[in-house]
């Protein structure tokens, strides 16, 4: 399926804090991203206000589900109940693609609710690629795989992080969701040039960018996704646009969520970068 997905423009996350305002004001963004798990129901049932809002938003905007719990790198089997609910969500909103992370989130049935790093090895490439292929086949939707931020690397790496991401996406024939902030955070935390990372990603695989903020703790960057996009990330975004061309972009602000207007303003800035950087 590669990374060739529809170009949607610039979007923002659909946050609970903004439900009422989004429904009333039709904000000037091109699309929305949702955290899949927030709309996949609970053990008791599936519905309530979140689903009502989702249905209304999906009538007017493309909506893309972005998951955090597929745990593609785990040694646990893929969770069939989870896939069933994700499939139901896809049937409900018919997204242009779905996405999740190149990581593991739990083992032996336990979920750590974190995106944990994998060893960059051939064995891990095979393992993850096979699971992604099964997910794509099951959901019949293009799948984009996102790079995570990390603070530790596991011993025994046979590949760089970007070689690992590129090889997994090639082997699984899936797309890549490039989180520009995560590339920058990792470049500082692990000592490589972020441009080398982006140059190592195949151009035809990238289907989406994330833009977000981080916190600098005396030189150790913590991926908090709780601030405006910093200048260094905007610069790297410009570099990415020059390399990859126009790519659907999402402003990802997960914590200390600002006003809807502030989020839309970030989206407008991203759109300006796109119009200035990318030749028509």
């Amino acid at each position, binding site marked *: 399926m590669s990374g060739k997905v529809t170009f949607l423009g610039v979007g923002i996350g659909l946050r609970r804090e903004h439900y009422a305002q989004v429904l009333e004001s039709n904000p000037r963004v091109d699309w929305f991203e949702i955290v899949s798990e927030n709309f*996949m129901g609970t053990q008791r049932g599936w519905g309530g206000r979140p689903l009502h809002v989702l249905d209304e938003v999906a009538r007017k905007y493309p909506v893309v589900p972005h998951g955090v719990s597929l745990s593609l790198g785990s040694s646990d089997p893929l969770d069939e109940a989870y896939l069933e609910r994700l499939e139901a969500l896809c049937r409900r909103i018919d997204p242009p693609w779905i996405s999740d992370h190149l990581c593991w989130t739990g083992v032996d049935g*336990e979920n750590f609710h*974190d995106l944990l790093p994998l060893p960059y090895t051939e064995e891990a490439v095979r393992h993850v690629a096979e699971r992604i292929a099964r997910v794509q086949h099951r959901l019949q939707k293009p799948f984009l795989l996102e790079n995570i931020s990390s603070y*530790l690397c596991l011993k025994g790496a046979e590949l760089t992080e970007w070689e690992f991401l590129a090889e997994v996406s090639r082997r699984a024939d899936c797309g890549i969701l490039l989180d520009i902030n995560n590339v920058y955070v990792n470049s500082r935390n692990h000592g490589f040039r972020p441009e080398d990372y982006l140059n190592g990603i195949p151009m035809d695989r990238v289907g989406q960018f994330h833009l977000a903020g981080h916190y600098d703790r005396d030189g150790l960057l913590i991926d908090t996704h709780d601030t405006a996009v910093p200048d260094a990330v905007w610069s790297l975004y410009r570099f990415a646009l020059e390399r990859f061309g126009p790519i659907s972009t999402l402003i990802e602000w997960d914590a200390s969520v600002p006003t809807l207007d502030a989020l839309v303003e970030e989206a407008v800035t991203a759109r300006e970068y796109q119009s200035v950087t990318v030749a028509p």
Partner: protein
Amino acid sequence: MREHLRGRGSNDMFSPCDRLEERIAVYRDGYYERLSEAIRDNFPRVYHVFGDVAFREMLFEFAQHFPSRVRNLNEFGACLPGFLAERERGWLADLARLEWAAVESFFAGPLEKNTPMVAPPLEKWETTRVVLDPSVIPLELDWSVTERWDLNSAAEPRPGDFGAVVYRAWEKVDCQTVARCDARLLLRLVEGQSLAEVTDDLPPEEAPRIQTSFATWAKLGWIRGFE
């Protein structure tokens, strides 16, 4: 890695780097912070009673005994009421049950505007089943914890026979105190018993009171219909 998240484990698995312990702590502290945030969001009244320090200590112990096995953090905490009950935390366990019911009510079933309904006449109850709104969750309680529904309340709940119904009124979840026997009756309706089945063992003198209760519940939107 799992052992590191629990505050133990060997560092041999990691590539050499500076500030290793600090980097490990990012993951370990983040793990408990996420769980803590989820429980605080879902149990704000319980959190208010504990206070920050005692809450963190409780959360740490809770997470050791009931590590998350759900995909969605919104669902983490289902075991908290039972955990508090086992530790003989008195009315806190009932308060936690009330708050968890609010979480379930919020996510329950399709959202429909509540429309006032009129209860069927008494003579039709033999053949009538009640369809309750999926967000209606009745509770039998051993403490008067509905007095703590208001987040600013400092009431000290009393032991006794109490009841409550948690329900969603369009966008907001609310809580209504009811007689324990009414909570029990509603629970039987939730289980699918017919009006005849739930009222057969009631004393005849209860009939007018039950009819009034049904009219109230219909006005509150708890009753979606009759079949």
